[in-house]
């Protein structure tokens, strides 16, 4: 290996690492606020990339129909829950409507826009909107009534959601893979490596998202409310922060991050309906390296995972995944030796 190959691998690793960083951040975010280990994070990635691919072909993406179905289920659950709570039909109807309105608007827009062959930028925004709308609905339908369950139960629910979302992905997108066109076709020679426009976009968007998340959690009241929920749910509820809306908001952010990640990687690799799982899990390994609690830790972990993967692919391409996923064991060992933390009931 010479310097030029090493730098190409480095660049490749850091590019992938930037995506893993975003997914790792989403994982940490969801876990700290809701204690849910959100395995299906990667499904949002695949949904995002494939929704755009479908729009490119001028078809209405299957995710739109799924969104409508999910929104109806969520609205029914919301309405029934409200009706049971206070027995007022009007209020139940309002609650159901509130749940329904955004997803249905997005779906309507998508159905109208799909055959119009709009510019790719608009299709991208639409794809993000569709997938983002899934976030709160998934939380409402699968997790909300289990809020007080143990992390273990929530983890198993996550696995169930992952199964369902992967299967539905197959149903709506088919087994065929798609590679999206690049958002920016420019190439910049930079010493021994060539920086593509897509890479620049990946770095820029990742950085921007990380800064925005940081600002959101440090500077805005809503972000602080989420952090409060992460520290102490009961305490936060007593302060008037609803754990329901905190969970839905968190999932909204997670879905948004997932969809954006999907758009970012769409042009660099062929995405299949089940590609998201491995990509998401690598973000997950990054988050675990950061202890599932630290954003900078997840960021560093992600870059590490990306670089290890790139070099692993070069030396032993068949064992790339083995190397990345075995990596978690020494990391966990190190955490365990450092004392870890035990789960105690107080």
């Amino acid at each position: 290996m010479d310097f030029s190959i090493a730098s190409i691998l480095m660049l490749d690793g850091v590019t992938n690492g930037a995506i893993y960083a975003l997914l790792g951040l989403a994982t940490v975010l969801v876990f700290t606020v809701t204690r849910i280990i959100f395995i299906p994070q990667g499904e949002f990635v695949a949904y995002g990339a494939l929704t755009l691919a479908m729009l490119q072909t001028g078809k209405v993406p299957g995710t739109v129909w799924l969104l409508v179905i999910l929104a109806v289920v969520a609205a029914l659950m919301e309405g029934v829950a409200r009706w049971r709570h206070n027995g007022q039909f009007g209020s139940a109807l309002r609650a159901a409507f509130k749940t329904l309105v955004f997803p249905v608007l997005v779906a309507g827009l998508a159905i109208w826009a799909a055959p119009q062959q709009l510019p790719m930028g608009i299709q991208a925004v639409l794809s993000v909107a569709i997938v983002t709308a899934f976030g709160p609905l998934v939380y409402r339908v699968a997790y909300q009534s289990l809020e007080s369950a143990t992390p273990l139960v929530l983890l198993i629910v996550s696995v169930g959601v992952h199964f369902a979302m992967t299967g539905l992905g197959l149903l709506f997108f088919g087994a065929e893979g798609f590679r999206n066109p690049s958002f920016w076709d420019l190439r910049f020679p930079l010493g021994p490596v060539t920086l593509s426009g897509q890479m620049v976009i990946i770095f820029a968007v990742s950085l921007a998202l990380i800064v925005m998340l940081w600002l959101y959690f440090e500077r805005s009241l809503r972000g602080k409310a989420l952090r409060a929920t992460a520290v102490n749910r009961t305490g936060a509820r007593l302060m008037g922060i609803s754990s329901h809306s905190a969970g839905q908001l968190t999932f909204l952010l997670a879905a948004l991050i997932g969809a954006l990640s999907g758009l970012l990687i769409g042009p660099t690799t062929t995405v299949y309906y089940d590609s998201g799982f491995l990509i998401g899990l690598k973000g997950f390994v990054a988050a675990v390296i950061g202890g599932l609690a630290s954003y900078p830790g997840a960021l560093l972990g992600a870059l590490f995972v990306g670089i290890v993967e790139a070099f692993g692919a070069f030396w032993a391409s068949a064992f790339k995944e083995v190397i990345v996923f075995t990596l978690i064991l020494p990391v966990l060992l190190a955490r365990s030796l450092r004392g870890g933390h035990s789960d105690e009931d107080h």
Partner: protein
Amino acid sequence: MTMKNLPLWLLAAAIPLVAWLPLPDFWIIQLNYIGLYALVCLGLVLLTGVGGLTSFGQAAFVGIGAYTTAWLTLNLGMSPWLTVWIGLAITAVSALILGAITLRMSGHYLPLATIAWGLSLYYLMGNLQVLGKYDGLQGLKSLSIGTLSIGQGRLFFILTWAILLVGALALLNLLDSRPGRAIRSLKGGSQMAEAMGINTFRYKVTIFLIASLLASIGGWLLAHFQLTVNPSAFGLKMGIEYLFMAVVGGVGHVWGALVGAALMKLLDDYLQVALPALIGTSGSYEVIVFGIAMVLVLKYMPDGLWSMVAKFLPRSDRPVDWQNAAELPARNKPAMGESVLEVHQIRKQFGGLVAVNDISFEITAGQIVGLIGPNGAGKSTTFNLITGLLSKTSGQVKFRGQDISALRSRLIARLGMARTFQHVKMIPDMTVLENVAMGAYTRSGSGVLSSMLRTNRAEEQRLMKEAQRQLERIGMGAYLHEQAGNLAMGPQRLMEIARALCCDPALLLLDEPAAGLRHKEKQDLILVLRQLQSEGMSILLVEHDMGLVMDVCDHLVVMEFGTLLTQGTPAEIQASPAVRAAYLGTEH
């Protein structure tokens, strides 16, 4: 035998019956699969349902068992009856490594590690030339005894289901034993178990090991059943499906594994045909149904299908067969007046907050000392520092002359210090008797293996006898077979005292024992405490009922805001203006 084991006897009777029924071969094959899956799920029942841990790596362990026997029989021509043990050994080593790494940390690290591990093992199996890459290894031989081939039909059915039956029986035996009660305590957090002298980490590793060994045997059987192995049967998807089987069937029940495996296998077969036909293209759409069903089951039937059946099974009390059992060994007690506990300048800081500020006091044998003070004074924290539940920032604690400052709570318990908790910690789905028997954990020694083989009965009888004796002593003789979770608050606290007494302690620490007790029960409690005192036991008591404290204590230690306010006899304390000010405030 009790009615509780009814399914066991039905199963035992059904094995030879089914094998000789004129069933079509297809159904025998199905039953073989169900038996294999149930064997793997059995491990998850122990690990997830009973122990509160979970693993997505069961399929990976199945893979280790399967690939080990496949490779060794194909390449070295070894006998399958030998390779099963080698597979078990390899499985044990990997399980111990994984467990040792992850089980000291929060509960969710084990599932995470098993996900990553299951994935990497899948890709490893799929890429190694010697294991035939994704095609796997073909051409295995059926199991045979001498010249008799077991094949894939009825003989294989008998073998698999006999192993399943033995496994289920061993697990049932284990769960109803000294180590089994320790395992059942893991789910509720480790504090109580450790305070009873139980090494919770060791038991977590143990159940993870047992679960993986069951999976490994399953893999061995599967390899010689399908006569071919390839990675897809051992990937993460299958690991998740095993967990799903256990959850649907009822992860807390041994028989849930069987129900879940049967349901999943049949459903899987049906959906794999029906869904593609419905949708029009081939593909594994059944995961949609499984995924949604998994969420629904966890929401609306968290105890699984078997719990529905279990409701209708007759329950019977544990037969009382221990009247003639020998007493458990008792420890030598300190002589009256000898120093039992010396607390010297102990301190606990949480960041900048000093919760306990250099507290010192002493207890001698036969003394009842009360630790009192307003809410938030640091009494319970002091308790936790003495019993080793919390680590001290500084200071020293001596118990019967031995420095125990640095010891963990379970080692302190072994020395003869027993405690109760301010918030009752128990195993709600065990009977009062079984809960109390946990207290005598350190006075007994039977392990996992002897419990599975049921050679521990004599010791079990001694444990139950001791538990009954202590319960009767504290006036709880009528509640022996009641489920602990059904008790009211007062009796729950009394049960904790009986459990602590089962430890045969020289020093008893009671954290608000009278909270929730009625007047009559309090009077009885005072009598019990006095009686214990007359037997030479020392007691340290945190209590808010001043009547009881003043009545029963010889010496009082008063805390306020983490510091020692004063100490002395009840009369002195009652007269102290400082104590009055602490409780009632000062006049201005």
